[in-house]
């Protein structure tokens, strides 16, 4: 028996649900069915308790006082850095920079690369990026006179690899690519993309915000220069995320913000910056959030990302199968390799109406453009509804989703 089958058998979703107190509630008199996990995931008790424990026992500022609480807080904070390092299989914990999330991590890198980019250069992204992996590069292009190149996708929502390849040239100075699309669920062949870009010496940032709860990441195997993610999609609190950067890159990069903790010596004439990663962590950070992130990774690792992914994929397969009985139902994003995200439209019913009507049945789905307006434009829809699955969702919840959709279609007449 292979490992994934063993994991699936051992996978006890009811046991997992016990760890998420928020799931045990009713919305408008109906059992909550939370299917908006691609927007943000719920938090297990161990994460919530780690934050409570920190504030009740260890709260102090880090990297300064010599008193006991400060030492404890510093140790917990730095342990979380080691946890992230192991989770991503980075070579050193010094390659992990804590940020507010994936967005800030991308902005940090884009800001640092402004010095290295000039008129005539090109930045390469894909057509399925989240706004957070579009706008910082547009801002960089505006500042430097560089040009943003966008590798197109096909009708299934997959990257057209040949066209991506054709866009790589001597002018390409940086590439920022999504590991997994938040609007479509598409998983990109990032290893091949990175290898191809490296043949031309182009540094690569991988936006892992959507991939991180679903795909085991090994940054050394991927060999990407940067990998970014947000904690809140990985069962951790909001407002905390991480940037992985190869040491040789981080050492060359200018600081993002100035302030305390990112310096080693300050006079009014000049400042000597602190070492990596502290150079990029100005000000008192989100200590509790960072500890929560560490606890979330421990929780996820204990179950296993691959086991979680196998469970979520079985939910997606089941949902896709069940949706076939609904005539008006159309899935947006049908890539062969995709994660547990089902974006859909219903013929003649606007996603906003779907969202409200599903909420009335206790079912939380996202309705909107998913911070990916160019993707919506490509598919010719103003918005989609999106059901996205997490480790605690069940096949019964997929049944509830489908029944809910049938109810609202009936109501719309």
């Amino acid at each position, binding site marked *: 028996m292979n490992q994934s089958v063993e994991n699936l058998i051992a996978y006890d979703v009811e046991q997992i649900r016990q760890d998420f107190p928020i799931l045990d509630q009713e919305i*408008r008199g109906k059992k909550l069915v939370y299917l908006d996990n691609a927007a943000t995931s719920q938090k297990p008790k161990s994460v919530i308790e780690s934050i409570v424990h920190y504030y009740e026992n260890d709260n102090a500022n880090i990297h300064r006082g010599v008193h006991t609480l400060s030492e404890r807080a510093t140790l917990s904070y730095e342990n979380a850095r080691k946890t992230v390092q192991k989770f991503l299989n980075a070579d050193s914990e010094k390659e992990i920079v804590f940020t507010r999330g994936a967005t800030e991590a991308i902005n940090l890198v884009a800001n640092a690369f402004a010095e290295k980019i000039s008129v005539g250069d090109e930045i390469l992204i894909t057509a399925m990026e989240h706004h957070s992996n579009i706008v910082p590069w547009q801002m960089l292009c505006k500042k430097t006179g560089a040009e943003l190149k966008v590798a197109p996708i096909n009708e299934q929502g997959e990257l057209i690899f040949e066209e991506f390849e054709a866009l790589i040239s001597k002018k390409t100075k940086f590439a920022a690519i999504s590991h997994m699309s938040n609007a479509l669920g598409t998983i990109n062949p990032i290893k091949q993309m990175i290898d191809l870009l490296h043949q031309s010496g182009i540094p690569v940032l991988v936006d892992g915000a959507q991939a991180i709860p679903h795909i085991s990441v090994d940054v050394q195997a991927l060999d990407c220069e940067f990998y970014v993610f947000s904690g809140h999609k990985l069962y951790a609190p909001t407002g905390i995320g991480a940037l992985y950067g190869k040491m040789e890159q981080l050492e060359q990069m200018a600081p993002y913000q100035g302030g305390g903790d990112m310096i080693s010596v300050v006079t009014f004439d000049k400042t000597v910056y602190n070492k990596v990663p502290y150079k990029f962590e100005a000000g008192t950070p989100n200590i509790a959030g960072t500890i929560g992130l560490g606890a979330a990774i421990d929780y996820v690792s204990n179950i296993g990302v691959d086991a979680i992914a196998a469970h979520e994929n079985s939910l997606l397969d089941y949902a896709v199968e069940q949706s076939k009985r609904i005539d008006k139902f159309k899935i947006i994003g049908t890539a062969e390799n995709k994660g547990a995200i089902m974006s859909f439209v219903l013929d003649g*019913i*606007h*996603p*906003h*109406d779907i*969202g*409200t*009507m599903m909420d*009335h*049945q206790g079912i939380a789905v996202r*309705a*909107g*453009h998913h911070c990916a*307006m160019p993707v*919506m434009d490509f598919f010719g829809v*103003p*918005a989609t509804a999106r059901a996205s699955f997490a480790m605690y969702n069940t096949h019964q919840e997929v049944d509830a989703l489908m029944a809910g959709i049938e*109810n*609202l279609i009936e*109501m*719309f*007449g």
Partner: protein
Amino acid sequence: MLDDLRDLYQEVIFDHNRNPRNFRKMDDADRQIDGFNPLCGDRLTLFIKFSDGKISDASFQGQGCAISTASASLMTEIVKGQTEEEAQHLFTLFHKMATGEPVEMDELGKLAVLAGVCEYPARVKCATLPWHTLDALLQGSEEPVTTE
């Protein structure tokens, strides 16, 4: 199962969504303006024609949810024949109703079918987008209107 939703989605709203009134481009409009709700992607273009100090014709085009489509449809029906001042007054009343402020419902006529929207904060902008667009048009703006 969805009976409690009937306060928001009354049959009149479904009717106007299925068959929106005045859903057409107006080539000889005196004024036109775009309205956009960036949150959900709803967008409409509003066309107005004036004669003798009154709105003689009103129409719209665009795409939106049932609430915003029905609201635009009802609005274009009701403002026909009104003076600018009357339409502005109606906008004020409608806005109050949609945001749950006390208002004399009789004055709103059939717009009252949208009163349920005040219970749904995330949907208030759907109902008010056409009216904000009309308000901007009457004030002489040509810039696209957004609800954000």
